[in-house]
C-alpha cells in the first residue's frame, strides 16, 4: 500500500479483555516495528521484525504482550488481560533494509487503545 496502515484506529475495551492490533506495512518493506506512545511520553520501542522473525523483543513490557508477523507482511500485536496502564497509542512503522542498514522508518497513524 501507499503507507503504513493500522487498524482499528481506536479501541476501547474493559480491563481484563484481550486485544489485537493490526499493522499492514508499506509494500516491500522487510523491517517492521511496534512502538507505544503514552500521554506526554516519547515513543517507546516494543518489538522489531525482520521478515517473519523478531530479533529484538526487548521492549515488550510483560509476557501479556506478544506479536507475530506472517508472510513477511501483516503483523498483529496482542495484549492479553489488559490493564489500565496499557492505555496508549500503539504505533507501527516499517522500513527498507539497504545493504544491511535500516532506512528511515515510516509510521502509521496508530491505534489509540483505552482500557476502562
Amino acid at each position, binding site marked *: 500500500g501507499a503507507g503504513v496502515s493500522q487498524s482499528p484506529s481506536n479501541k476501547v475495551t474493559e480491563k481484563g479483555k484481550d486485544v489485537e492490533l493490526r499493522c499492514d506495512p508499506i509494500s516491500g518493506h522487510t523491517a517492521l516495528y511496534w512502538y507505544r506512545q503514552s500521554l506526554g511520553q*516519547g*515513543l517507546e520501542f516494543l518489538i522489531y521484525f525482520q521478515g517473519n522473525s523478531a530479533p529484538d523483543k526487548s521492549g515488550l513490557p510483560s509476557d501479556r504482550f506478544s506479536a507475530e508477523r506472517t508472510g513477511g507482511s501483516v503483523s498483529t500485536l496482542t495484549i492479553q488481560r489488559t490493564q489500565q496502564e496499557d492505555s496508549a497509542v500503539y504505533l507501527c512503522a516499517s522500513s527498507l533494509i539497504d545493504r544491511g542498514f535500516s532506512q*528511515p522508518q515510516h509510521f502509521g497513524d496508530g491505534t489509540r487503545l483505552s482500557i476502562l
Partner: protein
Amino acid sequence: EDKVVQSPLSLVVHEGDTVTLNCSYEVTNFRSLLWYKQEKKAPTFLFMLTSSGIEKKSGRLSSILDKKELFSILNITATQTGDSAVYLCAVAQVFGNEKLTFGTGTRLTIIP
C-alpha cells in the same frame, strides 16, 4: 542506559520567527540520528543524519549533527502556522539493534 534529551520541551513563537530545536544523546553503538514531525497522528520523517558537520536542508528546515559533542539541531526559518507540531528526535543504533530511541519531543506552536 540509552538516552535522548530534547530541549526546549515547548516553544511558542510568532509567524516569521526562526527557531532552533536541540537534541542531545547518549547511546551505545550510534549509527544515525533522525528527526520527525508529529502533528496529529503519524510521525512524518524529516531528516536522517549519519555524518558530523554535514547540513541537511529541505526548504525552510535544516539540521546538522555533531558526533563529538553528541547533539543535533533542527532549524526552521520563516516559521508558518503549519509548522506547529511536536518535533521528535530519535537515535538508531548499529545493524542488529534496529530500534529507534526517541526523545520526548519539542512542542512548537506558531502564533499567526
